[in-house]
């Protein structure tokens, strides 16, 4: 199972890298969001995927799962959500201001 999820994380990173290297800004933003999710998968996988109960005393017989990676991921998802929101708005503003979402047309002008 760990191997599968690791491969999945790898695929996500590959896709994200492809998106990050593309010229369209909106794709870059999607790429960054995907990159973060690949990291989340990695974090939940590297300490080992376990089956167990909630880490509360007296709940379930199986050993508790490790709650820390989950807490970290939850926080990171929220942060990723915020960052994606900010970068989307930024992209939108750039599109409004400059009239393009192509990265190669964003180069500086002589008059700047």
């Amino acid at each position: 199972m760990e191997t599968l999820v690791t491969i999945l994380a790898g695929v996500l990173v590959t896709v994200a890298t492809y998106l990050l290297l593309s010229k369209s800004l909106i794709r870059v933003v999607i790429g960054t969001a995907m990159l973060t999710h690949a990291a989340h998968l990695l974090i939940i996988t590297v300490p080992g995927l376990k089956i167990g109960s909630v880490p509360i005393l007296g709940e379930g017989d199986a050993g508790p799962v490790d709650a820390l990676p989950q807490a970290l991921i939850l926080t990171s998802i929220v942060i990723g959500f915020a960052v994606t929101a900010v970068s989307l708005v930024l992209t939108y503003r750039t599109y409004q201001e400059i009239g393009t979402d192509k990265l190669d047309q964003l180069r500086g002008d002589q008059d700047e």
Partner: protein
Amino acid sequence: MNNLIAMPMMLPVLTAIILIFLRPYIKIQRTISLIVMIANIGISIYLLQLIQSNGILRLDFGGWEPPFGILFVADSFSVILVLTSSIVTAICLLYAFSSVEKSYEHMFFYSFINLLVAGVNGSFLTGDLFNLFVCFEIMLLASYILIAFGGKKGQLRESIKYVIINVISSWIFLVAIGYLYAVIGSLNLAHLSERIAEHGQTPIITVISIVFLTVFALKAGLFLYFWLPGSYSVPSTVVGALFGALLTKVGIYAMFRFFSLLFYHEPAITHTIIGVLAGLTLVGGSIGAVAYKDIRLVASYNVVIAVGFILVGLAVSTQSSLEGAVYYLVHDMIVKALLFLLVGTMIALTKETKLDQMSGLIRNYPLLGWMFFIVTLSLAGIPPLSGFIGKVLIGGGTLENGSYILLALAFISSIFVLYSLLRVFLSSFWGETIISKDEEIPMKKGLLIPCALLTIGSIALGLGAESLSVYIQDAAQVLVDPQLYIDAVLSSD
């Protein structure tokens, strides 16, 4: 347990939220922000005294004891930095009152400044990796927005670059945290340190430490500084000053913590790499500082040089070099804020950004000119100004360690700093006056007073080094002997 430790982070957070409700009342917003920063200054001075008498303090959030819960740890190193950042922010706020456009102030400008400070102070105080990541992100999110304030074309372009670079470095940070957790099974810094010391720093841990180094190098601008000059030169003056003073310092702080508390067992690998990177940063920064005519870029490259210089102190890691690095960090926060404020004021007064298009400003604004001169001397490390002692201590440390190349690079870079800033000084303040008395834009007191305060700060830091040395030695002591930190955190009280 001391709830005051959380205040340097939580007060700004609370303020930022309350200010959203006070959107139309700009005067109240200004007053509250300033009061909070002054309260933070008071709290950190009190904490500093408390640490002197009681040792390192900690606060377990929600009463969960380490290593299980999250916590804030206040040792001299972090509190000194919190104190300095509070002072710098308070003074920058004063500058903001008379320089920032009304429309910005209506768009929650002060809320974001408060959040930025919350992130910075949180990063300094946190005692676990988890919160370090969160505080970094709070700081970065606020900076994403502050950098784009105004929405000019250049700003948008640079802020997109800045956001993407930082998202990627945060990603590497997450991956590194995942690796470290997989190998060691804890995220509490003291607990991590203890476990690494017990099991030895195996090659895989060293590799992970290099991943962390990459992250912080990106954030601090150590060698990977390619994004820095562009991003730091586009935002409005106050924001630029805060960035130049605070943001890179957080990355530097994290590197100091990590490579003195966690990964200090293999200095032959990790510290050598830091040394090489610091040397290259000094070279690159020096070239950049003399290569450009845009004075904002010159100031930004000076930030890069300072990063390299401070990390020379970490690379050699002797008691005196660490003391010097702490001292230089404090000095650099104050002086870089001043440098950016002065440069921004010059641009605001002349409406020019290139140094060869300004000249003779000293006739119009003598005080501004002399303050710029003092900054130049202070950054170059001329006694009795604040840069001197840091440079001497770091230099002494490199001599002890026999790292002559780093020593040479560090001091040659000082000459480049002096040259690059003197060039600005000579060409824009000396020479024929281009602004006649009638066209002269009157200097606002609100712009001059903050600069004067920071200049006084720099002079006072140089003259009063003796009285500060107690705290700085204490800070360096913890960096040299991580056991002090571990004992303070893992002891049950």
